[in-house]
């Protein structure tokens, strides 16, 4: 085995998001804020880890939502410090109000916005392309193709931001955020920057008239940045392995990485010239125009949308999504790029590349009709118990829900809508008014997790209360932000780096929104919860009633395994089970297995955590507490 290199440079295998975190730290960033969301969630924890390892005094916070995170970072930058804010792509929708405005007012200390895209989508409600937000807001965008590049880009982004006094976006796509690479670490910059906000109301509190001036300045700044990107060869470069091919490909980020590997592995180097773009906005137009002019046909392969392609001025010989040569949606996996390339080469008589098509193997495996392992709530998950009770108590209700693990309540047929963060409440209120207008007061049950409620529940709830809406809101409080990897919520009173924060109890917030009917219950108490839901329904129909809120609380068992041992009710299945599947279809605990040959259920001890909740579920009473 080779000895570790003796140079000063340390190399570590880092997740893309950790490399970004490292870049933030190396740039001497003072303030880091974020709201968790796949694929961005690991960035902030990486900054916490490096802070601890290096004994830094970086201020780090999980904010209540992305706009809050953005504004906190911006204020640090206005005070002259370096600040970073990280979120997933749809988080930038939430923060977009601030982004748009801050592009005009600009920044003082470097402000880097990391917005992670999710082509696929793997874990998001849209495939939106954050680079378009850069164009929309008129702020520059960096687009990394490897974790190492992401780290270096973060550092340059800070410098660019400070030089031009403008916020800068780094847009890693999910494959970059979740890639692992051996990354070279470099020393951390120490920047002594005591907070020093210089008052300038014409700028920081600009009135519309002055906004016009700021807009003009912004446009000038962008031109200068574009000039700089024209000259840049670090992120934007040509890969010409042959002696001048007539075919060219313009590409970026993960697509660039995949394309290069395919060309290498298929011995096609030199068949096409490649222009790699790392700064998609503002696009280095002259470089791109030179490239398209020098090649007969140019293919654009980029994720997730058409940011580079749309900006190209003369598209007469340009192929891409707009011409139907690249799929309009879905992730550009290496296999997809392989086939796009094969078509491009064939259509232009360049070379033969065998397409990846269904081989006998793939066909045969399709024939096997393997069970699709659809995502499901964990065994013993308290949300499952709550959903089961909701469906049981009010089977005819409209179930509006929200974003989190509990979106999986869809499997239990207890989730009818998922729009975006906070819409569990707003849609419930909207449905109520739409039906009520016709004199029809249907049952509506909104479900929302604790973290989502802190994120965007309060304004929705107080507006619904104020406008006399009537529905039941069940807050599924598992005392953590579970789906994105267990980040603390404001209800816990623990800060991002493990310090002590002030607890903000959820019941107080609900009361503050004007709700008077509030009950708290352990989600595992299924029978009581069913009764409570019926009571809540009565309250929504009562002339003196209103919105009823139930806080169904039970800790997430993954985060708090000790919450599991406290209870421990070992269950078994009796002879009475006839394999009717009711428990599978309406409760779906992964530990319940149907043995088809025997027409009965079996408890899979590998998964069962002895929560005992399923005892409440079987209509035949066939699941019972084991007698030892």
């Amino acid at each position, binding site marked *: *085995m*080779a000895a*570790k290199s003796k140079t000063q440079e340390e*190399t570590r*295998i880092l997740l893309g998001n950790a490399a970004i975190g490292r870049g933030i730290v190396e740039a001497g960033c003072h303030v880091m804020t974020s709201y968790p969301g796949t694929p961005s969630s690991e960035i902030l924890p990486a900054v916490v880890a490096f802070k601890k390892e290096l004994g830094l005094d970086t201020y780090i916070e999980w904010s209540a939502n992305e706009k809050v995170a953005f504004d906190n970072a911006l204020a640090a930058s206005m005070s002259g410090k370096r600040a970073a804010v990280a979120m997933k792509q749809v988080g930038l929708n939430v923060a977009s109000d601030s982004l748009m405005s801050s592009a005009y007012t600009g920044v003082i200390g470097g402000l880097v916005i990391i917005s992670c895209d999710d082509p696929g989508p*793997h*874990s998001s409600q849209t495939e939106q392309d954050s680079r378009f937000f850069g164009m929309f807001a008129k702020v520059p965008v960096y687009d990394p*193709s*490897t974790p190492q590049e992401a780290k270096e880009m973060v550092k340059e982004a800070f410098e660019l931001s400070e030089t031009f006094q403008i916020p800068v976006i780094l847009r890693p796509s999910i*494959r*970059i955020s*979740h*890639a*692992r*690479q*051996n990354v070279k670490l470099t020393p951390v910059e120490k920047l002594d920057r005591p907070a020093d906000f210089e008052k300038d109301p014409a700028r920081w509190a600009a009135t519309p008239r002055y906004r016009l001036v700021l807009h003009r300045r912004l446009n000038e700044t962008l031109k200068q940045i574009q000039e700089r990107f024209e000259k840049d060869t670090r992120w934007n470069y040509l890969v010409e392995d042959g002696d001048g091919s007539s075919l060219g490909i313009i590409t970026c980020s*993960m697509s*660039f*990485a*995949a394309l*290069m*590997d*395919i060309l290498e*592995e298929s011995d096609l180097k030199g068949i096409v010239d490649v222009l790699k773009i790392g700064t998609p906005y503002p696009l280095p137009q002259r470089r791109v125009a030179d490239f398209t002019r020098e090649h007969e046909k140019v293919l654009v392969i980029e994720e997730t949308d058409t940011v580079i392609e749309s900006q190209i001025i003369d598209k007469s010989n340009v192929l891409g999504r707009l011409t139907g040569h690249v799929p309009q949606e879905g992730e550009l*996996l*290496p*296999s997809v790029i*392989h086939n796009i390339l094969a078509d491009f080469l064939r259509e232009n008589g360049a070379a033969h590349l065998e397409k*990846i098509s269904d*081989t*006998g*193997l*793939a066909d*045969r*495996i399709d024939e*096997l009709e*393997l*069970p699709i*392992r659809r*995502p*499901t*709530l*964990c*065994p013993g998950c308290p949300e499952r118990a709550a959903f089961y009770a909701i469906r049981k108590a009010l089977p005819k209700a409209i179930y509006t829900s929200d974003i989190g*693990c509990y*979106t*999986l309540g869809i499997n239990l047929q207890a989730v009818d809508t998922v729009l975006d963060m906070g819409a569990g409440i707003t849609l419930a209120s909207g449905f109520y008014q739409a039906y009520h207008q016709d004199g029809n007061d249907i049952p509506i049950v909104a479900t929302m997790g604790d973290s989502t409620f802190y994120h965007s529940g309060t304004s929705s709830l107080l507006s619904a209360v104020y406008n006399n809406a009537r529905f039941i809101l069940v807050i599924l409080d598992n005392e953590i932000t*579970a*789906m994105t990897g267990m980040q603390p919520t404001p209800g816990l009173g623990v800060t991002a780096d493990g310090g002590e924060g002030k607890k903000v109890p959820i019941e107080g917030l609900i009361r503050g929104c004007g709700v008077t009917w509030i009950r708290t219950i352990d989600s595992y108490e299924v029978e009581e919860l069913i009764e409570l839901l019926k009571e809540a329904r009565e309250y929504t129909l009562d002339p003196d009633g209103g919105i009823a809120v139930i806080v169904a609380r039970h800790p997430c068992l*993954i985060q708090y395994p000790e919450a599991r041992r406290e209870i421990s009710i070992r269950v078994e299945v009796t002879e009475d089970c006839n394999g009717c599947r009711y428990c599978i279809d309406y409760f779906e605990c*992964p530990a319940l297995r149907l043995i088809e040959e025997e027409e009965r259920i079996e408890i899979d001890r*590998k*998964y069962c955590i002895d929560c005992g909740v399923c005892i409440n579920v079987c209509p035949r009473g066939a699941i019972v507490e084991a007698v030892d």
Partner: protein
Amino acid sequence: MKNVQIILAGIGGQGILFSSRLIAEWGLRSGLDIMGSETHGMSQRGGSVTAHLKLGSFRSPVIREETADILYSFEENETYKSLKFIKSGGICFANLENENRFDRKVLDLLEQKEITFRTFDASGTALKIGSVMSANIILIGYSVGTGLVPFEYDDLKTVLESITKKAHLETNLKAFEIGYKAGRG
């Protein structure tokens, strides 16, 4: 050493990411560049988990169909789903209770592509040594024992020692050893 592309597939809780880290760390110490990625389902437990690992000079963190040299698969259905990634002449190590249950036609097709398909009941073995969580290490140990993979016993063991938490060290080393012996046959 030449480039190697490895896929590890299974379900949440089977230690896929740890296994991937083990091999990546080995690669790093052998002077290879590392590029890889991992995907997992939405929920915390029980969903598919796949890790792609490329050792050598690569740029993309994702492995293309029919290019992987080695597939480690820790669960039967995930094995079927991941076979398409193996190149002709590649190897699959599958954690499987009973090879006879595996689809005959698929086995024939693998043979046509000259893919070596080796199975071992790593979960059963893990259960026997009282550590269900160690099936991953057992299967990797097994592959080292067969001599069909580029990692040497001593090197991988050293890495395993250095990345395992103290509390699990004894079990992991035991699991590695048992797998290795079984692989040597």
